[in-house]
């Protein structure tokens, strides 16, 4: 029983939360990496695009809940999600038309676009806070748990409980579906191929008759969808507070860069690398080791590498290490 208890404790506090968090980061990092690959700049407004998408979805969810529309055991927010994506897509397309297109036509250096995107970030940030406020918003409904800790203990007779929230399961399933659809789109459809061509070599793509504005517009729509889905899943799983989306920017960029900017596979791998390192490095292994080791060797300390205060420092450290030893990222993204 002892090794089983250790495994369950580890799953409850490390594997399950880190997997869900990794999926959310991966979706966010995919959006960042697509923008980088095709529009060629680091989009600092991505965190706040996620917040905007989540906000629209929350407002629609509240409206649906007021109409007594629910989705059974699943959160109502999933019903509101498509409309949320549509509104967010309109917003980013409008932003592109009003802001980014001007600079694209000027063929400005990427660093200028980065600064421009910071401006966009502050505006979106303001819009979200203005509309929904700065406080926590709760919009999750439906069944909260797939299995909760107490039931699991009663069911298995183990000392340790395992809790899996519905939202964690939904996060993982949605992320898998979305990623599969995205890869199918990029690799199998004509539009996807033209996007990859544009990403590989802009001039050659133009010569072969690819309409750049169309590629850009489709990229923004996909990014809006990814951002909204990531934002809503994060909000469902944790809580919606505009400020936390701004904070998410760091781990998301860390994930994208670790995986290799511009590489979709890298973004996903990077998301999970960052999530698992953040959680395992700050986890106190006392309990797990207590089950595994003989009594005489039971650790007296917490067996914690870093205090949880340093969670964000882990992303930074990994970022630095990867950039030192493999500047293009794990999956060799673009470097310029």
């Amino acid at each position, binding site marked *: 029983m002892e090794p089983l208890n250790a495994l369950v*404790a580890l799953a409850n*506090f490390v594997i399950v939360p880190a997997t869900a968090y990794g999926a959310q980061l991966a979706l966010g990092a995919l959006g960042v990496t697509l923008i980088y690959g095709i529009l060629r700049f680091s989009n600092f407004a991505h965190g706040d695009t996620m917040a905007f998408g989540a906000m629209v979805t929350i407002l629609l969810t509240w409206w649906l809940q007021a109409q007594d529309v629910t989705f059974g055991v699943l959160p109502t927010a999933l019903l509101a999600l498509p409309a949320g994506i549509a509104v967010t897509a309109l917003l980013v397309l409008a932003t592109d038309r009003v802001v980014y297109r001007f600079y694209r036509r000027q063929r400005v250096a990427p660093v200028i676009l980065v600064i421009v995107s910071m401006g966009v970030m502050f505006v979106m940030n303001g819009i979200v806070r203005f509309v929904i406020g700065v406080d926590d918003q709760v919009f999750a409904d439906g069944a909260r748990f797939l299995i*909760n800790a107490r039931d699991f203990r009663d069911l298995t007779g183990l000392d340790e409980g395992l809790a899996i929230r519905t939202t964690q399961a939904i996060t993982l399933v949605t992320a898998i579906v979305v990623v599969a659809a995205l890869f199918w789109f990029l690799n199998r459809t004509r539009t996807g191929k033209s996007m990859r061509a544009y990403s590989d070599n802009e001039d050659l793509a133009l010569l072969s008759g690819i309409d750049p504005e169309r590629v850009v517009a489709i990229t923004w729509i996909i990014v809006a969808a990814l951002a909204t889905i990531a934002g809503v899943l994060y909000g469902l799983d*944790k809580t919606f*507070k505009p400020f*936390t989306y701004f904070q998410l920017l760091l781990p998301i960029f860390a994930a994208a860069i670790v995986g290799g900017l511009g590489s979709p596979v890298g973004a996903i791998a990077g998301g999970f690398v960052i999530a698992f390192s953040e959680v395992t490095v*700050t986890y106190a292994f*006392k309990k797990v080791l207590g089950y595994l080791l003989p009594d005489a060797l039971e650790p007296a300390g*917490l067996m914690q590498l870093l*205090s949880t205060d340093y969670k964000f420092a882990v992303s930074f450290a990994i970022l630095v290490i990867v950039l030192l030893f493999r500047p293009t990222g794990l999956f060799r993204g673009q470097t310029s």
Partner: protein
Amino acid sequence: MKRLMIATAVGALCAGSAVAQDDPVKIGVILGFTGPLESLAPPIAAGAELAIAEVNEAGSFMNGRNVEGIRGDSTCVDASAATAVAERLVTSDGIVGIVGAMCSGATSAVFTNVARPNGIVQISPSATSPALTTIEDDGLFFRLAPSDTRQGELMAEIIQGRGIDEVAVTYTNNDYGKGLADSFESAFTEAGGTITLSAAHEDNKADYSAEIGALASAGGEALVVAGYVDEGGSGIIRAALDSGAFDMFVLPDGMVAGALEENFGNSIDGSFGQHPSSQNEGAQTLEAMLAEDDVDGTSPYAKEGYDAAAVLLLAMQAADSTDGQAVAAAVMNVANAPGEPIMPGELAKALQILTEGGDIDYVGASDVELVEPGESAGNYREIEIRDGKIETVTFH
């Protein structure tokens, strides 16, 4: 001619001093009107100003002198701004007593830089930092809020009284959280309890599963959450419940609020805690009095605001002077037994008794009882969550 001029000058001087006698007695109401606790300041100020108005209405204050309250903004986090505003009120307005400041940091800045050098009595309605107990004060500093040291000790008593002797502690990463966690830790371990882990958490995060992971690994029968219910505290409880790490929580003052019932309902039944509060009828009287002015008397420390101004003015009356040392010497006599108990709304009666040389025991809205070195003994309400509701267990 020369004589006439001298006579006139002497006459004018006498008239001048007679006028000075009729000048209003000015006291500063220095609170954090802007800054992180700005929403708490207006009700406290309203409480203090209500006491001032009541004293003025009575008309018997120091042979019919009027009292004027002058507001100053001490912010909460900016010690230099607090010092500057207090300095201005002392030098240009000529205040002879201070009600304030709100936050512990601003309070000690105002006291050490302005009140003490000028020999002015300062009574804070709300500063709780343990550091203010040991501040060098020449006897001039008082506060009506209990020190967090007291809450830490009481919390340790309550927990051990329930037969729990192994707990984990998480505190919000600021002076309040750290101070409370430290005082609790020393009281609890001294009484034979074990603290498995005392870890800080940051407010404003979406996810506390990592913090809970560490706390769960350390174990313990209950989790002490020295945080804010509107900030990280609720996130911690949510994460602990979700992962099944803890189902019993100990909730100090920052956590006891209606939001707790809303957020968790009956899923934290059996959890318990305490917060400064008293149960006397004076509290209700004052709430009703403040409600007439559309002020929420239940707002934290609003009652202490009224009591602070009342104690300050009654001490002046008892000393029949506005001199700092004389007033300070009278504060304890006015606030504590023996004497006629004084409730809110009875300031006229209190002034009358003092004029006649009698003795009063100011009870006020917050059950004022000062212990050395001039701070509130602290009245706490012990609560328990039953069926998703915060219920009173007893008063300490």
